[in-house]
């Protein structure tokens, strides 16, 4: 992995939210994190550990209070077409069909209609929504909605895919299925992926590498684990379970 190109570099990133004149909430403190190209990195931490804020800073939706995020060596100041995001609450445009949602980013880029249709269809097929092109989001189940979110993010052909607890609202069954799907999609179309989750099983199942955050604010990075279990992984595999125990005991987190 060491010969791989450095994709994202967070350097001393701090974030403080000022709620009132006197009330400052330190959410992130001195975050240093490097992500390599085509790596599937999982940011693992309990709720309120600042992991989503870090993701939003990398996305360019929030500005760091101190430090900087470099993408391909250039400082991130705002969202750009080189990054796509999948949201926990799906954030699909309810007034657009599945196809409309998936093609939206391409439309804004000025991609001609015929080409848009082809690319859109490719990713609708990739996430397994063939036949639902004309459905509106409210007609879909949670898992299907998030498939649209993933297709929409992929269709823009970003270099980096940011997933903010994408399966947090799904039931356990659908969640396992979607974990398999995200790994399958990533194996078919390699991208640098940052996956934020609070679920340790999900983290071990998906990640090339897991970065664990401390359990309370201000958020700091606690430790990092390279996961080299062969894919497809098995939740009940001995190696899987040992790794799970190792991470939970070392981090003293009840995950």
């Amino acid at each position, binding site marked *: 992995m060491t010969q791989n190109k450095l994709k994202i570099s967070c350097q001393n990133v701090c974030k403080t939210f000022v709620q009132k004149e006197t009330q400052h909430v330190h959410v992130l403190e001195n975050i240093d994190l490097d992500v390599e190209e085509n790596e599937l990195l999982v940011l693992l931490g309990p709720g309120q550990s600042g992991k989503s804020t870090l993701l939003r800073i990398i*996305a360019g*939706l929030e500005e760091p209070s101190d430090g900087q995020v470099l993408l391909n060596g250039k400082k991130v100041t*705002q*969202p*750009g*077409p080189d*990054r*796509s*995001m999948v*949201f926990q*609450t799906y*954030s*699909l*445009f*309810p*007034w*657009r069909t599945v196809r409309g949602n998936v093609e*939206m*980013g391409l439309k*804004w*880029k000025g991609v001609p209609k015929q080409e848009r249709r082809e690319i859109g269809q490719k990713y609708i097929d990739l996430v397994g929504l063939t036949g639902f092109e004309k459905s*509106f*989001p*409210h007609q879909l189940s949670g898992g299907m909605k998030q498939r649209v979110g993933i297709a*929409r*993010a992929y269709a*823009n052909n970003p270099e980096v895919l940011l997933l903010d607890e994408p399966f947090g609202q799904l039931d356990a069954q659908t969640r396992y299925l979607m974990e398999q799907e995200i790994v399958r999609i990533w194996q078919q179309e390699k991208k640098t992926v940052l996956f934020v989750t609070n679920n340790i099983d999900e983290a071990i199942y998906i990640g090339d590498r897991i970065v664990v955050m401390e359990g309370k604010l201000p958020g700091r990075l606690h430790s990092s684990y390279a996961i080299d279990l062969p894919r497809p992984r098995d939740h009940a595999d001995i190696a899987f379970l040992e790794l799970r125990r190792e991470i939970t005991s070392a981090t003293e987190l009840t995950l």
Partner: protein
Amino acid sequence: MVHTNSLPKVAATCSQPSKLPGIFRKIYQSQYALYVLSIVLCIGAWHLGAIYKILGSFLPTPLEVLQEFLVLSTDTLAGKTLLWHLWSSIHRVLIGWALAVVIAVPLGVFMALNDYVRAIVKPVFDLLKPMPPISWISLAILWFGMGEESKVFIIAIGSFVPCILNSYNGIRLVDPALYDAARMLGANRRQEILEVSFFGSSPAIFAGLQISLSIAWSCVLAAELVGSRSGMGFIIIMGMNQLNPAMIVAGMIVIAITAWLISVAMGRLERFICPWKREIPL
């Protein structure tokens, strides 16, 4: 058909075998038969109330109202038939309402999108908002006389408030996560406003149009009651002056049916314009 089906079928709730003979059980178990029954009972009670004069001699029977309706439709009142009076009311509503929509919706949108516009418009609007539109009638007559202008003015004032309020709140209440999604997909500010603000607020703006239309409809009646030679309000006031309650009730029923038809048409239009909205039974 779309709306009525939302009620659970009555048959499903009375599953135990009934002792009623077949034909009655069928009627009893059909919701449409119950709808008819409800209306028949209501009209029957009205008829009895009228012939026993529970409200004095000024409650007409349903039949008298029907006769009056036919008289109004064929004969003329102040030189015009019922249909013409109805049209002159609708005509005023449409002009006043359209005038309000054209001014209020963009104003509400700009208020929501621009802090300076909001800071300038909102205090004035908050001051005007609680004034009942009907309280403007006297001033409107002093300013514009007894003609069309004063009525259109009242209707526009009444329609203005819900239009501006719903446009303003509609845009401010759009889910902020949708703006994040648009920005992540590469939308610039103009594209963001066109896509997220516009579509995201359109159900609320449309609801504002519906509310303001029904307010416009009550405003036109109030305006016509005060000083007019035409319109549905004029028919009602003539009914009072001629001591003819059947004329009043016939006018009220025509008004109600018209208002109902307008709201049904608006509902249809909404489903056509905003097909992504979950269907809400009326």
